[in-house]
């Protein structure tokens, strides 16, 4: 299989260069080839006019290339400070100076507006925080080239703004930045030039100012995407029966007691900043964590969800934000990953017949445009966005009554994103309730009937999504903590 085929590509000092392409186009592969993770079969790399060949990421780093790879690639067992500084710890006489390291780490994160305990292990933080840590590490490395592969996939607007401020500063210092993102707005805000890939081939190189968004999308997916913005206003939800009623549900240290009702056929969006507790709500409703206080009613009956299994039994589904740690089983094939939850629900004594599996899997590979469309490929060999689609497919085939989506469009390209949004809208029209979490407020607004706003691990407001609600208003609500 060829992931990249004769791609020419150049990166100039002092520019932000966007690498564009659909899921599986070869962006991450190109980056890994550039930084010595994979070997090159043909072609050459020149750095400042000199031909180089990196045997390992270490060599690339030493040559002045600093990289944030697509999935968060840090060590969860080490502290935040160490994750930022490991390999280049401040030392005196060979002895690591821990105090100094923590101080500098806190300072560095402070510049990104992140105020966390840098001595705590990285695993204590949500994925978004981990992504920020990875960025902090990369920008602190004294490099001439900075490569960021989808660093913003689970960041919200204010973090992205912080990141962009840092990127502009680095750019002024003459550093070349390679940036990958599926958020077109971000690209147009920051990038000077872009290179577009499709199916591992070079499509073209353009100045951002000379290419319209529509043209860009056209070049990326190879056809016009007319109905990208088709999903405009949401029809008001028909009054469905109450499916989930959380009353004073809470968990110490994670989320304050909250009250939330979800009706059948309703899409409820959760909005809030990093670590505001959105994921925690989702986990409580799914039985992944145990609630310390409060009651949960499903169909009016009080229940105690002891495990995800119990929730799945009630036809709840939860698509985690952290696909690598909590979602996929990398060794298993695409097919196995997709049917996993369904099979688990049926129990191991009732295998899903192979024909039925192929049918289901085939259907969702087409529906979500998973590429390559090879059900027997280990899922680890898929590109990030396609992995996300596989995870989504796993929950969709369950035909759940409540679908909890935590950052479901993380790393998914524009075309597929529209597809998924349309799917969600369709399903909710069919009576499925959806709890929708996304860092992208537009998306939340576009889909949900109702938005619950969180701040500092408290549910502070619940807003009906009518014509008047805008992202700005929502941002305002988040910032003011629901006081307005």
């Amino acid at each position, binding site marked *: 299989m060829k992931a990249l085929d004769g791609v020419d590509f150049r990166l100039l000092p002092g520019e932000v260069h966007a690498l564009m392409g659909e899921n599986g186009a070869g962006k991450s592969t190109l980056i890994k080839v550039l930084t010595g993770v994979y070997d090159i079969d043909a072609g050459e790399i020149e750095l400042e006019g000199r031909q180089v060949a990196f045997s390992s990421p270490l060599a690339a*780093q030493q040559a002045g290339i600093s990289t944030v790879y697509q999935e968060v*690639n840090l*060590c969860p067992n080490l502290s935040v400070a160490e994750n930022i500084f*490991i*390999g280049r710890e401040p030392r005196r006489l060979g002895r*690591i100076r821990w105090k100094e390291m923590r101080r500098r780490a806190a300072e560095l994160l402070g510049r990104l507006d992140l105020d966390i305990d840098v001595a705590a292990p990285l695993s204590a933080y949500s994925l978004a925080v981990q992504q920020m840590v990875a960025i902090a*590490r990369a920008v602190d490395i004294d490099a001439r080239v900075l490569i960021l592969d989808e660093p913003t996939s689970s960041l919200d607007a204010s973090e992205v703004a912080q990141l962009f401020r840092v990127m502009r500063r680095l750019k002024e210092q003459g550093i070349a930045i390679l940036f990958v993102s599926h958020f077109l707005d971000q690209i147009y805000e920051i990038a000077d030039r872009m290179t577009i890939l499709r199916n591992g081939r070079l499509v073209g190189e353009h100045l951002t100012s000379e290419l319209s968004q529509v043209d860009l999308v056209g070049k990326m997916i190879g056809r016009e995407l007319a109905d990208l913005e088709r999903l405009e206003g949401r029809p008001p939800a028909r009054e469905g029966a109450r499916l989930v009623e959380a009353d004073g549900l809470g968990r110490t240290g994670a989320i304050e007691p909250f009250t939330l009702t979800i009706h059948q056929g309703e899409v409820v969006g959760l909005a809030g900043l990093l670590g505001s507790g959105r994921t925690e709500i989702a986990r409580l409703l799914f039985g992944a964590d145990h609630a310390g206080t409060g009651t949960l009613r499903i169909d009016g009956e009080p229940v105690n969800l002891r495990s995800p299994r119990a929730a799945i039994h009630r036809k709840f589904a939860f698509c985690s934000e952290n696909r690598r740690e909590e979602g996929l089983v990398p060794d298993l094939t695409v097919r196995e990953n997709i049917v996993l939850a369904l099979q688990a629900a049926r129990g191991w004594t009732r295998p899903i017949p192979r024909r039925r599996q192929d049918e289901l899997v085939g259907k969702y590979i087409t529906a979500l445009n998973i590429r390559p469309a090879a059900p027997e490929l280990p899922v680890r060999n898929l590109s990030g966005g396609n992995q996300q689609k596989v995870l989504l497919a796993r929950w969709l085939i369950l035909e759940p009554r409540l679908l909890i989506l935590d950052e479901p469009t993380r790393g998914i390209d524009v075309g597929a994103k529209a597809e998924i949004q349309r799917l969600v809208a369709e399903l909710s029209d069919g009576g499925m309730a959806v709890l929708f979490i996304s860092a992208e407020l537009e998306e939340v607004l576009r889909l949900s009937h109702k938005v619950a706003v969180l701040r500092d691990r408290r549910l502070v407001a619940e807003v009906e999504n009518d014509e008047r609600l805008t992202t700005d208003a929502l941002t305002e609500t988040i910032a003011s903590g629901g006081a307005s």
Partner: protein
Amino acid sequence: MTIATVLGSSPVPRKYVPVLVTAALFAAMFVVGGIRYEGLATGQVILNVFIDNAFLLVVAVGMTFVILTGGIDLSVGSVVALSTMVAATLLKQGWSPWAVMVLVVLIGSVLGLGMGAIIHYFEIQPFIVTLAGMFLARGLCYTIGTASIPIDDPTFTAFAQTQINFGDMWISPSVVIAVVVVAVAAYALHYTRLGRNVYATGGNEQSALLMGLPVARTKIAVYTISGFCSALGGLLLSFYMLSGYGLHAVGMELDAIAAVVIGGTLLTGGTGYLLGTVLGVLVLGLIQTIISFDGTLSSWWTRIVIGLLLFVFILMQRLITARRR
């Protein structure tokens, strides 16, 4: 004593809780044993545990490095035996004891280096490579000779029989060596880049590689360290036994792994402390001491009771740490 210093320093972060629980349980076991068996609760008994397990301690230190990277080293017991065998044979041929010591340690390190290189460059699971290493080292022992070879070199005998007294208690020079090894290793793990790379590699090897850490060097280094420690442990064992024998230290790899794991280090790598390993060794040693103080157990009851004590210990450790979380 080591425990006290940790307890003394500022508020205890949560990551140290398992080690502290282990320490407390060890103390409790000692006290209960002391009440139950007359003469057990003396300082010398604790020192005896050190004297009798100095070699295991050193071997377990090496094993800790390996396990922290998520690997395993099954060859340690055999390398210990090989070291005693090489030392005894060469001493018998009239080599200088110091030269022998250097050579033995060199052999162990080179064996470790070789295994580490194979594991890393050929991407073979550590379990098999070190199992082959185990066969190799033990096989070399038998090729040297199947009988036990006495050591009567004066330097070795001095190491074996010197008693370092304080008050009416004493320790052997081996204990001093072991404690130094522990101290150096603990320093290396906590305060040097190598040490932190060990933890990073164990946490997530792929990530460590992408973060630009020298994973290859680290992995090879830990097996070399383990080989070095095994050889040094072998020397301490030759002091202890004053003999070289191909059947020495059979199954010691399991003791070492058990000590490391009892000390709270995760076999999957990335989490654990050297102090835990020390406690693990002490726990195993104390269990043995209790058994021999009891003195009424028949052979099979000995094993059953060892298993039971181990079970109770691990269960308590697990339950207490789980509740603290």
